[in-house]
């Protein structure tokens, strides 16, 4: 059965390693914070200037001066630090953040990503996404395998304006975990109960399928 958003977040959380600084994008990526594995300590960076971001505040304790990059009211963990936007992107560009998780509209088998603009529609801007994807060594995309029209978002080539080129290493969708290498998608895991055939049929890009594809362990 295909995963829901929390399932995707839960699977991505398994990628976390102790001691990592992690930047989570808006949407599904934000949910990853709810599933940090036992015994693992990670620190969340928010690009508007927080290291050590904590959970939402209790009602009545919201501070308008303390928000995350999604403009949501948040709190600080013990040992947090606040900094300006230039320092924040120094961390990102300088590869001090070990993992970036973000959403996408399209991903290509070359690791290109498109997630900021649909020509002819309202354009909201790339925010920090271009800096994040151009800089991070370790980028995981959290996305649905297909769009609302049922068309694959896992493509040979992106059709939308790019956010970054050759940067995505791993994609987690509601049905599969894919790795990108040598210009191809590689099927690593399937969602519980989802068949390899379904994944193949929903993937437009070139997909390498090993003989045995394990189910995700959630």
């Amino acid at each position, binding site marked *: 059965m295909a995963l829901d958003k929390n399932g995707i977040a839960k699977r991505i959380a398994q990628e976390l390693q102790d001691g990592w600084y992690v930047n989570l994008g808006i949407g599904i990526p934000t949910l990853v914070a709810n599933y940090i594995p036992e015994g693992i300590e990670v620190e969340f960076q*928010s*690009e*508007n*200037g*927080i290291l050590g971001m904590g*959970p*939402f*505040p*209790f*009602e009545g*304790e*919201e*501070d*308008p*001066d*303390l*928000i*995350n*990059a*999604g*403009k*949501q*009211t*948040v709190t600080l963990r013990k040992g947090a630090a*606040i*900094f*300006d*936007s*230039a320092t*924040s*992107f120094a961390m*990102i*560009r300088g590869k001090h953040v070990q993992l970036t998780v973000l959403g996408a509209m399209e991903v290509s088998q070359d690791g*290109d990503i498109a997630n900021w603009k649909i020509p002819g529609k*309202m*354009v*909201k*801007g*790339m*925010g*920090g*996404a*271009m*800096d994040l994807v*151009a*800089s991070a060594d370790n980028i995981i995309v959290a996305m649905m395998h297909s769009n609302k029209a049922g068309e694959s978002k896992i493509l040979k080539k992106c059709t939308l*304006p*790019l*956010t*970054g*080129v*050759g940067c995505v290493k791993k994609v987690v969708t509601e049905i599969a975990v894919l790795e990108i290498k040598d210009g191809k998608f590689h099927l690593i895991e399937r969602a519980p109960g989802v068949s390899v055939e379904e994944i193949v049929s929903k993937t437009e890009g070139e997909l390498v399928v090993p003989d045995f594809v394990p189910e995700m362990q959630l």
Partner: protein
Amino acid sequence: MNKVVKNVEEALQGIEDNMTIMLGGFGLCGIPENSINRLVKMGVKNLTCISNNAGVDDFGLGLLLQTRQIKKMISSYVGENDEFERQMLSGELEVDLIPQGSLAERCRAGGAGIPAFFTPAGYGTEVAEGKEVRVFNGKPHILESALTADFAIVKAWKGDTEGNLVYKSTARNFNPMMAMAGKITIAEVEELVPAGELDPNFIHTPGIFVQRIFQGEKFEKRIEQRTVRQRG
């Protein structure tokens, strides 16, 4: 060096039509509310505004969009704003979208006398169009130029009479770099204190970057996304 001006009226003197203005803030957090309200009253037109976001319909820079005082926005993320969308799609408003980190670094560069620098952000995308590409350590980078403004308007928590500023929490965001990059920098603060009250060791923006400072009359500090969790 006393930088104090009486009020927002005096602080914003000299801002004219067609000028470029930087405004600090991220979303509605840390924006110079009093100065934006004053710009609406002044009615200056054809402004180019450099600000990470464009406010919402009835708060922040959205107010200057309602009155059509902005000719061009230079930002990393806009929207959350119907009037903005209408003006942009109809072509009334020019919009220059810049990766957030490049925006921050370009403002810092403008204030720091660095005319240009290389960054990997935007390589291979339309942001790179017309820009020089150079490979460093096997990775392509694009050349980005410095940004400056006729006026930079920033919002701080506390400021002293010498223009030294301290920001509160994530209301810091773009304010320190923009303070550096204004030909004239105006700081509106929640609390104006005498010189010597701020610890020299913990000042976020040294007064040298600030030409005018005043205590804002009222800060609404609207929250854009109120998110909370349940107790226990």
